[in-house]
């Protein structure tokens, strides 16, 4: 494909400039993409390890919670946990990785006096370990949320960058090159025709 332009020397110059810019842009974007993919792969690996860990521990936590639950009537379990005693606040910040804004979740766990909001006379001791495991799970789960979101955002960015790289590589740059070629040929053609015309005129003048 050729961009529809006037085949003039002016245009040719500006197109050549655009081609240089496009090529430089392409190289930069390509580098960015490579780096992104590298970072992304690292992150995905980290993500998978963390997810497996969290899932394994969650299964344990839920199992121990279920076992604790089996030792007490449902309403006693509910009553014991009605008011939570530990408070956690989270603060979501942004971090820039290769111009992608990924979330950074900061947890501030209040220095709580006590993790366990219930008394001991009517509750099963199995509840203690369930609560303990669950409370250590929270930071990990938030970390997982952070990494998973970051992966998603990175993936989007990689896709966007790839589209741009492709657009440059397969559309804009060939177009520019074709157009430059077309203009050069057109100009050469013009030159040749004016030269022949001149030669023709010269011949006619010589004869006459």
């Amino acid at each position, binding site marked *: 494909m050729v961009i529809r332009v006037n085949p003039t020397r002016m245009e040719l110059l500006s197109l050549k400039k655009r081609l240089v810019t496009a090529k430089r842009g392409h190289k930069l974007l390509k580098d960015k993409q490579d780096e992104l993919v590298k970072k992304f792969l690292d992150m995905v690996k980290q993500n998978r390890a963390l997810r497996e860990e969290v899932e394994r521990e969650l299964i344990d936590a839920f*199992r121990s919670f*279920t*076992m604790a*639950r*089996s*030792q*007490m*009537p*449902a*309403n*006693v379990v*509910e*009553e*014991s946990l*009605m*008011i*939570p*005693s530990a408070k956690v606040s989270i603060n979501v910040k942004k971090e820039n990785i290769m111009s992608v804004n990924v979330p950074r979740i900061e947890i501030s766990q209040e220095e709580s*006096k*006590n*993790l*366990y*909001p*219930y*008394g*001991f*006379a*009517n509750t*099963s*001791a*199995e509840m*203690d*370990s369930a609560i303990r495991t669950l409370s250590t799970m929270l930071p990990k789960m938030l970390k997982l949320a952070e990494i998973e979101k970051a992966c998603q955002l990175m993936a989007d960015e990689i896709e966007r960058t790839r589209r741009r790289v492709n657009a440059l590589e397969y559309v804009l740059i060939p177009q520019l090159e074709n157009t430059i070629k077309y203009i050069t040929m057109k100009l050469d053609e013009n030159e040749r025709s004016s030269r022949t015309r001149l030669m023709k005129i010269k011949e006619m003048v010589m004869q006459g």
Partner: protein
Amino acid sequence: MVREQEFLYASGRIRALETKLLSRTIVERILEAQDMDAVMRVLSETDYAPDFEELESIYDFEKALENSMKRTLGVIKESLKDQRVVRFFTLKYDYHNLKVVLKSRILGVEVPENLTTLGEVPVEELLKLSKGEKDVAVPKLMRLAFERAAEVYEETLDPQQVDLILDRALYEELNLLVQDIGHDFLKSYLAALVDLTNIKTMVRLKYMESDLRTLKKSLLPGGSIDLEFFEKMFQEPVPVLIEALAASNYSKVVKDGLENWVSSGSPAVYEKLVDDFLLGMLRKGLYKPFGLETVVGYLGARENELKILRVLMVGKINGISEDMIRERLRDVYA
């Protein structure tokens, strides 16, 4: 002091009811059932059939357990003139409701599903109490405990304090009740219950890395083991505790249970052994022709049965492995 003769009629009725308690075979069959339908089929052969038939969903099984307990309490109450023995079992339900009502007030929500219908003080009265009304039909001890718990919560904002204060109040009242009834069997049963709970509480607090102050607040009154003993033992490792209790009645429970707790990190075995030990005490009621033991034994056995069913149902619904269920399965009474 109660007269043994007062329990003649009730003992007679209980002799008939005892035969309907779940047998080991039934428990095994439930344990081996493939799915919930099979569990229900086994249950439909037992005394629980009417309660489970009413259920819309198996997940509401707690309701069925509660209803069956309510029926049992009703039967025993109507066969006894002196209801204090039954009160020994129902008092904890009232204190449970008291906790729920107070915590609901703190949170500003209403959670009727957390209340139990097994208590004897009407829930409406408890709700009135929590709204600060003066003229309420709540026993004085409970009212005082409620107010104290509310006060302490406001000072500390620690929900655990609510439970600790009300648990203590419950056991103080149980002690008074047992003194009032004046029967040695009940006295020794309560003392054992308190001792074994205190031992458990102490070990739990050790695992929680808690402090002596919390321990003092958490230990229940009325046991045969001095509270100073626990305060001393709190600093020591668990094996020292096992050693120190080697000469007591609880030596076997403590040794097997706590050793398992230390090695596996799970209190399940200890809790099971405690319940089995207490049930063993209650079994006296099974062999006495009539008397307070028979009534207490039967009511205790029913509570134990609910625990068995609860472990089985929760285990079956959640697909817990047979071994894990079995580890927690209590003995049967008869």
